[in-house]
């Protein structure tokens, strides 16, 4: 005995494929201060549960979804030929990532960038600050700031040249402005009217057609720790510290997030 279920499934699927309805995106409430990092981190509630699909979406105040900023073509950074041996990068469009789906549900935060590499997210493995390199990456640009030369690659890694000629990966200084697009992999985080872009302990805000490195606003919540953060346990409370800021972990919507405050 066959019921019209088969037809129902086919027609429903065809309709959904045609309409491409947007994902159920439940933006999340926020601990005390601001909207949580990438809304996608906490979207997709209830994956893998029939029961959850029947639950009404929570009535939460959706923080403004920070959309990535695409730099205007004329504002894109022009690579600077710093040394003769460096290949001059041709002008190219740097597509900012929309977001980093570090997690969707309590057990679904396993699809991070390093698993997918460039194929999926265009996010390469991070370079740890303090690493030294004989040469700069193939594509890089140069920024002169506060009497120092800084070199950035497209992944947002900042380098300074050492006296021995090698290049050291460093934390970019506060105030430096990179032109063009936000580095690949930066997560937009809406804080009031301001959209911050977070990447590995570096916070950017749009400024004059580029992105300025700034200190994090107190209370901002980020989805991942910076590489190189150190764990501190005090009074049975665990905390991480990086670059003069505390990263206080907590579980929100089933995933571990970090509230940033000055140390």
């Amino acid at each position, binding site marked *: 005995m066959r019921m019209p279920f088969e037809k129902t499934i086919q027609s429903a699927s065809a309709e959904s494929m045609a309409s491409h309805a947007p*994902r159920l995106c439940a933006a999340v409430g926020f601990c005390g201060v601001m909207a949580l990092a990438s809304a996608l981190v906490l979207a997709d509630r209830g994956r893998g549960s029939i029961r959850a699909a029947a639950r009404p979406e929570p009535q939460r105040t959706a923080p403004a979804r920070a959309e990535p900023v695409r730099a205007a073509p004329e504002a894109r950074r022009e690579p600077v030929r710093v040394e003769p041996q460096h290949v001059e990068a041709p002008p190219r469009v740097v597509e900012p990532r929309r977001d980093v789906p570090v997690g969707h549900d309590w057990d679904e935060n396993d699809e991070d960038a390093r698993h997918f590499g460039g194929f999926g997210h265009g996010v390469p493995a991070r370079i740890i600050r303090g690493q030294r390199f004989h040469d700069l990456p193939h594509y890089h640009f140069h920024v002169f700031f506060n009497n120092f030369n800084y070199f950035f690659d497209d992944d947002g890694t900042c380098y300074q040249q050492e006296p021995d000629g090698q290049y050291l990966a460093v934390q970019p200084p506060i105030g430096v402005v990179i032109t063009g697009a936000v580095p690949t992999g930066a997560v937009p985080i809406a804080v009031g009217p301001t959209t911050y872009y977070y990447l590995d302990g570096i916070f950017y805000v749009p400024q004059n057609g580029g992105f300025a490195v700034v200190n994090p606003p107190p209370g901002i919540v980020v989805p991942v720790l910076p590489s190189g953060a150190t764990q501190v346990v005090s009074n049975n409370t665990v905390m991480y510290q990086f670059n003069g800021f505390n990263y206080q972990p907590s579980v929100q919507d089933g995933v571990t997030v970090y509230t940033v405050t000055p140390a």
Partner: protein
Amino acid sequence: MIPKIFCAAILLLIGVAAGADAPPATQPAAPTVDPLADQIFHQSADFLAQSHAFAVHAEVWKDEVLPSGHKIQVTRLVDLDFRRPDRLHVDARAHHKGRSIWYNGKRLTVFDRENNLYSVADMTGPVDQVLDSLADDYGITVPLEDMVVADPYGSAMKNVTAGGYFGDEPVLGVPCKHIGFSTDVIDWQLWIADGPQPLPQKLVITYKTEEQSPQWTAIFTKWNLSDRASDLAFQFIPPRGSAQIPMVSQRASKKGEGHP
């Protein structure tokens, strides 16, 4: 002749106007569920509901639609231990990461295996109540929760609009009956073992309203219906070097919105 045409036009206009005011003819269609499919699922759900305790292993394949448009599939392994009415342990692992939940009738612990951090919330009551509280207050949906509710049939058939039986198909060599149901949001299919223990062997959920209709698939193995799980299995013991972090409820976070 003219008066007749005039009257007809008037009547037509009245009819159109009346039609415009009439409520739309589309009423929610009554569920069209194959009685055989309903019976097969009901038997399985009742069998689960009457099982005092069970453990099962699941390999979960989850479609992930990337921002680039690629649809890929990720895998995780889920182990579930359950004892009615108020003991639950779920362990989910993927690659080098993993998360686990313990519920011992008094408190619920979420453990982030990668960061060696755990979070505790005081909860009491049967598992159904805890699952609802987790979803509503903490935004957490426990994997395989459909298996552990007190009424799996009523819970899953809620909002079902259609269902059918698609014949016999083996899953990993186990003869199964293949049934499927549809709601407005998802289609879900279940393969139920054909035998004295009608246990689910495979579950596929299609999120048909989402872009590229991703699917979530679970293959169930290692069913164990013995009632030998000790209380220790549902008790979280902090691993060496682990640290406790707060679990922020959505209610608390909602209170704080907009107050920097």
